[in-house]
């Protein structure tokens, strides 16, 4: 009896994973290397939304005269640097032609070697740390970089907010927030900054708020994950922080809007896309999010558009362009065409420099309207 039960269970498992149907067109696989859980789960899911929407609009691609169905293959890197290589390996094993992602620079840096070893090209969507591309031959990216973003934020803090002393808070061992804080400090002036790091798993941010107040800072810079951000916002409100909060692209998220709604706070962020820049696109994707319950849940329960979603959308089309230009689904061919690729997406013109970084020179600055719970446009910032 036990043996029969065991056999039945094994059969169930095998049947569950066996492919259900065979598609008519050949399939080209694009790997989606994104966090779907952990600190950056919310952001990763929003980035995937853009790719899914694009995939739904353009489900096929013509490569060298043959029409291929595009299949998105997902791997959850769980926002953890130690899990990233395994997730990357699983994508490579499933035979993807190229990879998109990840949200969060740390996991992208951690997975770089795995992609490089397999010579599978990866296109970073919103990972802004320079090391992602500089340390890895096969990594490209379509967004701006932290040195640029940090400088923009520092300039904004000085000129627009009139700040003279900044409190910078990063997560310990986190490449994104640590890197961005360093570039901010470089641009703002080392002596005028207080820099602190909080350990993994911290939920009590009240002491850091007190530190900022006690040291007489007049801007609170904390480009940390949205999970920590929600805690910081709550504490900033109850402790009457009394200075504007500044953050990078990560904070351009519904999580922030939901957390800040009805609070007496000023929050400014830099980001990749401002809603309204392409009204037709906005309308289409919002319609799709509203009518798809899973998409709606992954977007935090409303149709507020995050810039990372738009970047995910553009990334998908960059991937298709690369496949078309390569004329093959072989990762090596795709890798060869990427450096010379050009594409104009919703977020602007995308082209790569020698290192594989996008040539971008402007960022949007937005502020959180705590009454309506939406982002208000402030300015377009450029450097140099």
């Amino acid at each position, binding site marked *: 009896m036990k043996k029969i039960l065991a056999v039945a269970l094994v059969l169930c498992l095998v049947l569950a994973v066996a492919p259900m149907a065979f598609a008519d067109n050949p399939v080209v696989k694009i790997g989606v290397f994104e966090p779907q859980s952990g600190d950056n789960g919310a952001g990763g899911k929003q980035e995937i939304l853009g790719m899914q929407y694009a995939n739904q609009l353009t489900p096929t691609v013509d490569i060298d005269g043959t029409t291929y169905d595009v299949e998105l293959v997902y791997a959850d890197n769980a926002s953890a640097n130690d899990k990233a290589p395994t997730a990357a390996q699983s994508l490579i094993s499933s035979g993807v032609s190229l990879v998109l992602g990840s949200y969060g620079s740390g996991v992208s840096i951690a997975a770089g070697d795995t992609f490089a070893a397999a010579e599978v090209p990866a296109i970073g969507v919103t990972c802004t740390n320079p090391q992602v591309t500089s340390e890895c031959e096969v990594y490209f990216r379509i967004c701006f970089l932290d040195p640029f973003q940090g400088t923009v934020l520092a300039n904004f803090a000085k000129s627009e907010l009139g700040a003279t002393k900044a409190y910078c808070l990063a997560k310990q061992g986190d490449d994104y927030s640590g890197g961005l804080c360093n570039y901010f400090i470089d641009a703002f002036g080392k002596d005028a900054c207080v820099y602190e*790091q*909080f350990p993994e798993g911290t*939920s009590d941010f009240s002491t850091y708020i007190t530190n900022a107040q006690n040291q007489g800072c007049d801007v609170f810079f904390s480009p940390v994950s949205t999970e920590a951000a929600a805690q910081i916002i709550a504490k900033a409100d*109850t402790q009457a922080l009394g200075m504007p909060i500044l953050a990078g692209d990560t904070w351009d998220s519904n999580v922030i809007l939901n957390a800040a709604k009805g609070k007496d706070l000023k929050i400014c962020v830099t980001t990749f896309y401002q809603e309204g820049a392409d009204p037709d696109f906005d309308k289409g994707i919002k319609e799709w999010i509203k009518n798809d319950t899973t998409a709606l849940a992954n977007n935090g329960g409303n149709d507020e558009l995050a810039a990372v979603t738009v970047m995910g959308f553009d990334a998908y089309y960059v991937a298709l362009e690369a496949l078309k230009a390569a004329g093959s689904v072989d990762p090596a061919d795709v890798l060869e065409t990427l450096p010379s690729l050009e594409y104009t997406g919703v977020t602007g013109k995308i082209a790569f420099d020698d290192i594989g970084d996008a040539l971008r020179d402007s960022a949007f600055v937005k502020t959180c309207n705590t009454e309506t719970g939406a982002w208000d446009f402030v300015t377009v910032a450029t450097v140099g």
Partner: protein
Amino acid sequence: MDKTILPYLISGVSVGGQYALIAIGYTMVYGILRLINFAHGDVFMVAGLMMVYAAAAMPLSLAIPLVIILTVLLGFTIERVAYRPLRTAPRMSVMISAIGVSYLLQNLALYITGGLNKNYPQIPWISDRVTVLGMETSRVTIITPFLTVFLVVLLVLLINHTKIGMAMRAVSLNFETSQLMGIRINSVISATFIIGTFLAAVGSMLFFTNYPGVVPTSGAMPGLKAFVAAVFGGIGSIPGAVIGAFIIGIAESLIKGLDTILIVNGTITEQIGLATFSDAFTFVLLIIILVFKPTGLFGEKTTDKV
């Protein structure tokens, strides 16, 4: 009181109170079963998640008691399903079972929430902003330590002056003998889990009102710190766990602010990055206490007869 240090002390006492409520669960279960219930921190997280969903579906006056009841039920069920069948098994098996329950709860929560941060509902009145001694904070920060002490006094009274309390003391003294004396072991153990999870549920309300974001791993760090507090105070001793929790909470908070305190009073002029070591401190403390006084501050001294 110095205005620079005061906010750190208040937040430390509040954090300590929350750790204390969780630590009692660890220490009571250990006292009776000699089991470190690793799932305790996750029960705490599940209580938070249940509150998120309950508050969305019904008024808070209904949601709060319901969540407490459901959490208690969860604690009871865990003991029934995962620990009771292993009563005669070696202690290690029960501990592994506890680790299994911990992962099960975390992954269930991951599955249900999709790994996203859930915003904890605002409980009116206790989450209001108040001004105490010239500093702004939320009311819950002030209430937490008092509520903790109140619940602990109640618990100590229960243990010292009721029949079930006497049974608990007997069982913790000697498992087999108390069984021979006619004490129903199973119901005493169930009662222990019920009390432990009740306190964890209350703790989760105070904690998440203060730090409103629930993720599947929310219970891990507070659980671990509370466990350290329980060991520090002498595992098995309730007053020990509470005092240990307050010491750890206050010390952590002060270390996080130490740089600023020293800069403000002029001892140092540059940031030296002490805040980074707040967690390290907690765990170094655990090592030191285990090396020099394994029974903790108030731990009972037992001699094993061979």
